[in-house]
């Protein structure tokens, strides 16, 4: 069984374009190498008195990674991020879907979106932290509040762009409510939801350290502030590197895996045969006719 003729695909290329046979990992590694080279240049030639050297910083990184403290602080911070993000995601999902379905709800939340996506997060954090007290739960609530608008926007746009043609198919063929949600609506929301996860997590990672700097006594942000107050730039950079490494890990191990699963139908459109580059041509019927 070799049905797919190997004509060039007339369809949209799959999401991941081939980059001239060189694996993408090579380009990613190249990016890291360039960044390190620039750092090395800065620490040895340009500002040798200010910027810590690559070697000594990596040593500190090594100490962090082999000690227990980093993981404890990272866990505290990650918990805040996940809980804050969860609040924001549920809120965004509910508000965004409602906005996509109802003009009244859309109008009601319109200003919230405009304000929310451009609000000065630092000030908002100050207000909420002072109002609710300097505790981990206020931090979580603040994060949830700050990430809600951007998640809402994603879901709202997705809900607005639902394919009415497929909706009609579901109606004509009498799809049940469950079948409609499962086969017609959710697959369309998956893309926007994934975008919302990315931007939402991005915002929470960013703000969590800021909030921890402002007034908490634990977490990555707190540790970095302490190092900063001691003018220990090497530790600041080491903490930042470890933190970023963790964020990258989440992106590549978790989010991309989910993405591949969701978009399997687009990347491997030919199913098991994995002939994503070939669109099967109509040959069978010509033979019949």
């Amino acid at each position: 069984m070799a049905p797919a003729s190997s004509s060039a695909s007339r369809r949209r290329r799959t999401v991941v374009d081939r980059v001239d046979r060189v694996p993408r990992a090579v380009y990613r590694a190249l990016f890291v190498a360039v960044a390190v080279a620039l750092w090395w240049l800065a620490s040895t030639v340009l500002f040798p008195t200010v910027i810590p050297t690559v070697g000594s910083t990596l040593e500190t990184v090594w100490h962090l990674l082999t000690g227990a403290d980093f993981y404890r602080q990272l866990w505290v911070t990650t918990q805040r991020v996940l809980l804050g993000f969860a609040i924001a995601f549920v809120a965004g999902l509910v508000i965004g879907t409602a906005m996509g379905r109802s003009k009244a709800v859309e109008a009601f939340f319109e200003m919230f979106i405009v304000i929310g996506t451009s609000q000065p997060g630092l000030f908002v954090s100050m207000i909420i932290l002072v109002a609710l007290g300097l505790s981990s739960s206020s931090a979580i609530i603040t994060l949830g509040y700050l990430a809600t608008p951007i998640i809402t926007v994603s879901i709202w746009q997705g809900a607005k762009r639902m394919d009415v043609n497929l909706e009609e198919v579901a109606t004509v063929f009498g799809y049940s409510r469950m079948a409609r949600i499962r086969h017609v609506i959710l697959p369309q929301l998956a893309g926007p939801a994934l975008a919302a996860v990315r931007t939402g997590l991005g915002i929470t990672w960013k703000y969590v350290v800021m909030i921890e700097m402002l007034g908490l006594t634990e977490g990555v942000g707190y540790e970095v502030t302490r190092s900063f107050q001691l003018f220990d730039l090497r530790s600041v950079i080491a903490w930042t590197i470890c933190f970023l490494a963790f964020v990258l890990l989440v992106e590549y191990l978790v989010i991309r895996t989910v993405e591949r699963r969701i978009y399997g139908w687009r990347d491997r459109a030919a199913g098991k045969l994995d002939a994503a580059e070939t669109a099967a041509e109509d040959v069978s019927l010509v033979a019949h006719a």
Partner: protein
Amino acid sequence: MPEPAAVLERVAKSYKVGGGGSIDVLDDLTLTAERGSFVAILGPSGCGKSTILGILSGLLPHDAGVARIPPPHEIAYVFQTARLLPWRTIEQNLEITRAARIGQRGHAYQRSTADYLKAAGLWEYRSFYPAAISGGMQQRASIARALSVEPTMLLMDEPFSALDELTARTQRTFLLRTWRDYQSTIIFVTHNVLEAITLASSIVVVSARPARVLERIDVDIPRPRSLTDPRVGALQDRILALLGVDDGEPLQRRASG
């Protein structure tokens, strides 16, 4: 004589437009589709053919007249484009739709999904997602989906107009074959005169808006109908004259209308 599959009697329909006015789309339209017949509704673009299908499918209410149509779960629909769920394989597209219908239907399907996929020449492609097969195959999958719910009436809204002519021809052959095999009533909307002549057992020629039936023509030219058959040419001239496109020139026997 068995009862017809669908009857429209003096059906009228108008749409409200902005500013308080309204457009009459159908005016006093009468139409009968006998069981097992292949009725082509033919008219100029924008004459309200889709509205006729909407009323026949029971999804669109009409303003006046009588519509006797089968219950919704006995009607299947093929759209201008395939409208398959892109995130489900060809086979899943059929399965999901069949599963949706089985509840209202109340009895098991006579044939399996595999039968319909094989008939459509899609068996080898059953695990493909729609994006991986050609447009013609997608449309055939959508016809297989409609047939696989074993409808008593199949409504088709210009199903081949988005395909190139060569592909469309293959699809027409396929449709005729399956229509003979499955004995379903087909109501087929088109603005392509030759397509109607090639396929239909009767052609309902409809006027420009508001749509009225200009004439109902039973086509008794034996199949397969050749475009070089003089009877086909004569019928085409007659229909074009009805539609007022008779400009005195020898009518081009072009394949798309």
